[in-house]
């Protein structure tokens, strides 16, 4: 029992990332009908927002320490972050420590802007072109974005630690009533899952309970009629593209402590997220979320030692295997709507 709970927990953090990226992909596909291969790049840009903010906060000047000496007995040169001067040492250190959560606020405007520019500048011109062209041009864009990031941040992963409070692990099993030391779980992964749940909930609430969301849902169902009612649906869809970019970006920001950001992390996630989207059903938001968690958890179950003894290598291929089976037996995916990309 505890092994099963542990695997479910292990699957949750990856599943959360899949679900968030797939949610954004589906928002874009459902509203604009565009297959966005650059979505993984948005996830990566989000992670680099965290890196950037932590660099800004850590921005230091060099000064000569009055008390410390180096091993030759000369005064030691030390780096003093500017935040120490501005907010005092204690508050400054707290800021440095909390750089990743603060990057959430920092990244939202950036991601909204990136999404808006992407849609207005490029994707807009591809509505009437075939899906293959959309895939290709966004694939090209993904290459360009990742090379730009590589140019500025280098090719190596950049460690971006979580706040001190959330570092390390805790005995989650004991809290749930299992034997102590059976389920040890890192704090940050739990934070990531909670964060993902909040974001997913917020997106659904936004679509369900606001007038803006209602118009967008109407537009997803029948774009032409909504347009005929005198509503500028294109403008709202552009905003939805920005929101989808922000969701991917936030997923990236919070993922930075789990996996040090590098320039190709987006591509690694993109392939799996696309599998998630088609498994969930193109254009179905609940389907994307469900499939994200489902595949994340399946992946972690497949990497259990007991399973690997019977079927070696299953953890590497389980997601693709599930995708192939589902696509061949349920053409619309798990929760796809009738008539949306069924061929």
């Amino acid at each position, binding site marked *: 029992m505890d092994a099963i709970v542990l695997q479910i927990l292990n699957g949750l953090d990856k599943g959360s990332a899949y679900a968030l990226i797939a949610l954004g992909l589906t928002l874009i596909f459902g509203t604009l009908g565009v297959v966005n291969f650059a979505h993984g790049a948005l996830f990566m840009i989000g992670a680099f927002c965290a890196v950037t903010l932590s660099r800004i906060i850590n921005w230091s000047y060099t000064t000569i320490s009055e008390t410390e000496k180096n091993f030759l007995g000369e005064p030691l040169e030390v780096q003093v972050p500017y935040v120490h001067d501005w907010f005092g040492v204690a508050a400054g250190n707290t800021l440095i420590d909390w750089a990743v959560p603060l990057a959430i606020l920092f990244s939202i405007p950036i991601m909204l802007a990136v999404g808006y520019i992407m849609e207005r500048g490029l994707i807009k011109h591809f509505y009437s072109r*075939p899906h293959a*062209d959309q895939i290709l041009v966004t694939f090209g864009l993904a290459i*360009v974005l990742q090379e730009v990031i590589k140019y500025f941040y280098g090719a190596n992963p950049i460690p971006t630690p979580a706040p001190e409070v959330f570092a390390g692990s805790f005995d989650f099993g004991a809290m749930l009533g299992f034997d102590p030391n059976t389920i040890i779980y890192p704090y940050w992964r739990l934070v990531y899952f909670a964060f993902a749940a909040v974001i997913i909930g917020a997106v659904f609430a936004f679509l369900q309970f606001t007038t803006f969301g209602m118009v967008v849902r109407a537009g997803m169902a029948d774009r032409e009629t909504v347009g005929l009612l005198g509503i500028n649906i294109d403008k709202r869809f552009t905003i939805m593209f920005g929101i989808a970019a922000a969701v991917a970006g936030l997923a990236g920001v919070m993922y930075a402590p789990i996996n040090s950001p590098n320039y190709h992390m987006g591509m690694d996630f993109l392939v799996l997220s*696309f599998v998630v989207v088609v498994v969930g059903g193109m254009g179905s938001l609940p389907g994307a979320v469900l499939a994200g968690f489902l595949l994340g958890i399946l992946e972690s179950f497949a990497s259990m030692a007991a399973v690997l003894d019977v079927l070696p290598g299953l953890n590497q*291929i389980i997601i*693709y295997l599930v995708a*192939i089976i589902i696509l*061949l037996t349920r053409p619309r995916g798990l929760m796809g709507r009738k008539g949306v990309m069924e*061929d």
Partner: protein
Amino acid sequence: MLGLAKKDFTLLAVVVGLTLLAPFILNPFPEGSGMAQFNAGYPDLMQRFVIFGIFAIGFNILFGLTGYLSFGHAAFLGVGSYAAIWMMKLVTTNVIPAMILAIIVAGAFALLVGFITLRRSGIYFSILTLAFAQMSYALAYSVLTPITGGETGLQLKLNDPRILDSALVGGDQARANLFGVNMSSSYEMSVGGWLFTFNAGYYIAAIVMILAFYMAIRIFRSPFGLMLRAVKSNQQRMNFTGLNSRPYTLAAFVISGMYAGLAGGLMVAMDTQVGPERMFWTASGEVVLMTILGGAGTLIGPVLGAGMIKYMENIISKINSTILHQWFAWMPDGLEDFVVAVIYPFIGKGWHLTLGIIFMLVVIFLPGGLVEGGQRIAGLFRRKKTADETSTTPAE
């Protein structure tokens, strides 16, 4: 001639001329001159030009004619490579049986994958092929290690059985050959300041590519090719007329898988090693880039695209900032630094950025790729002829 229309025969003749004279054409600058680094006429790179040319020609038969965008073609290349290296390890180091086995095995694998994936079209087909390729990659990397050598891959070893070859004495190396002609043997010709290298492996690969290109022309011009174009322009209408399009798409898929296998076999014939990374999905993405860049649905486009990407990967990527400073040394200092700073991100290690930008521009403005670009430029010079008279119009 050769069952080709006059225009196609001219195209084939041009390709034959270019590939056979490539050691001259690709080495336009004398050794030791400042421009010598732009010379691409060394065997390793020329082999890559033609091998990836074959790969892209095959991919184009599927994507260019039927419009099915496969994101997992590298799997067939990898499978072909593994088959070829096993042939060389177990039977003989002669490259012909290795290539034949590579084609057969890749074709059989493509038949299996195609049978399953071609049930769907559009984005689903892309995802399914991607899923199969990633599965092959993951399995080759982990579980299938006894067959694939896992992460280290496979190389020829001294004590491989090789039942048809005579045993090697210690210190000898097993080398890929064609009836005794070593693949890596070259004849070097020095004319003035120029040094031309004629490599046996390159010429064998080039002849294979010419044959593959000829086959592709025949397929493009055949009734079968027309059927494939019909699939691309309107599959539904084709089905309404009572034709089952699946056998045609499956045949195209298998043929293009066989081309990929042949390319994989040739790769092994040139460097006698193989690793799972050539099946990774970025390798599949690369052949998509090549085909689109050159011009999907045109005959010569994929070869041009493959050549262009490999040239950038091997030549442009070697330009570093020191070389740039040398080029612009004649400028005033401040201006020199500025120009170098502007250009530097796009070349050297940043060549992928240039590639991505060119690729996006091609997709946006030139859906027919470089071939369409060339035709448009040519069209400016001779306004009398209409566009559709040119030799290779992209399939609709």
